[in-house]
């Protein structure tokens, strides 16, 4: 896939001597694809930067995109795709921006026909393909890290641990519990027990649509870990379907306290700790 020293010399020469023509055509093609979603000035800057990096790399003789000599070129490409990924361009748009150089080159080459031209064009084309694929990969990587960041933020948001009473904390779980989230919940809950010195925790699963073996295991492990630390867990809000699944899956909840609602669970804990609770009697008018 590498360009020989000869070929890169010729391509470098071509890109330098016809710099204006190539970059202009290149810019035009991209602008046509993006339909004004990137400002002209920004686009020109990007194309010129890429052009300069490419010429620099070609000036070092043999060119292989994966070699050390092309570090600068790779950095420019990566930068470009990062920017486009963040601005919401598609992967295709980002990669075809690089592929557009082929078309621009072809038009330039057509003006001076010679026997070597076709072979050169194929070689150049291979390099540009490599650049395009590299852009694509950088783009995907950027997107992946964006998604990972967002998932993490979501995880933070979706697992609040609240203090219900002196010595009682609760985690109201809402939404699907996967393994990663269950783990975060578990750690956060246990840490809160330590921080607040609360010997009771209520795990409320009213908002959890389904429980599979793995999730049930995570909840059970949390309860056991809490016990090891000297705290008791109560599970509340088990819906009828979930109760059926738990029994059907043969999961043993053993001696773990379960209550129908968060309120019941809190009342249960308060009774254990000796706090008096009573329904308020309707006040009689005298």
């Amino acid at each position, binding site marked *: 896939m590498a360009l020989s020293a000869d070929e890169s010399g010729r391509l470098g020469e071509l890109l330098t001597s016809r710099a204006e023509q190539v970059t202009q055509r290149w810019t035009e093609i991209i602008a046509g694809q993006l339909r004004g979603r990137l400002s002209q000035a920004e686009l020109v800057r990007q194309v010129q930067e890429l052009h300069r990096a490419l010429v620099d790399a070609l000036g070092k003789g043999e060119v292989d995109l994966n070699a050390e000599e092309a570090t600068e070129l790779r950095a420019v490409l990566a930068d470009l795709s990062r920017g486009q990924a963040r601005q919401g361009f598609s992967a295709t748009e980002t990669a075809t921006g690089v592929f557009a150089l082929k078309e621009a080159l072809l038009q330039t080459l057509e003006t001076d026909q010679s026997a070597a031209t076709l072979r050169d064009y194929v070689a150049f084309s291979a390099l540009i393909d490599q650049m395009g694929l590299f852009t694509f990969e950088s783009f995907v990587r950027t997107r992946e890290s964006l998604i990972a960041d967002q998932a993490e933020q979501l995880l933070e948001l979706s697992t609040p641990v609240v203090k219900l009473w002196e010595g009682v904390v609760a985690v109201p779980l809402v939404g699907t519990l996967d393994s990663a989230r269950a783990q975060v919940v578990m750690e956060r809950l246990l840490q809160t027990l330590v921080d607040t*010195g609360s010997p009771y925790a209520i795990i409320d699963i009213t908002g959890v649509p389904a429980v599979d073996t793995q999730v049930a295991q995570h909840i059970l492990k949390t309860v056991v870990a809490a016990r*090891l*630390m000297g705290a008791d867990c109560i599970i509340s809000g088990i819906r009828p379907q979930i109760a059926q699944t738990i029994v059907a899956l043969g999961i043993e909840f053993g001696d773990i306290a379960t209550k129908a609602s968060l309120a019941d669970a809190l009342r249960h804990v308060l009774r254990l700790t000796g706090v008096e609770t009573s329904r308020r009697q309707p006040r009689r008018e005298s």
Partner: protein
Amino acid sequence: MERVPILKIGDILLVSIQVDMSDETAVALQEDLAERIVATGCHGVIIDITALDIVDSFVGRMLSTIASISRVLDAETVVVGMRPAVAITLVELGLSLNGIRTALNVERGMELIAIDRADDDHHEEWDDGPVAGATASP
């Protein structure tokens, strides 16, 4: 070899493990503690493991053994201050620390022992059945 200090506070022996214990140190603590329980006649032992960043099966077994020994010597053991990460790891490891009572911190541990002693006194006064207090698990 380092030795873990044992403090006497009222009717309670307090062991605060501050070092990364070698197995030898753990075994020595087990022996020292049994001697101190007998020598002082204390009825409660609190082992504070707040500073321990791991508890492996050896230390886990030591804690179980201490609890069993002290129970034989009529003292209640409470392990306090286990870190969340340690607890999660122990669960994954499959170590359940059977027969060990736990509390979140030293203060709660002391409360637990106090409640226990109160119950015990109560039983000794009013219960003359032969099974009183024979419910200790291994």
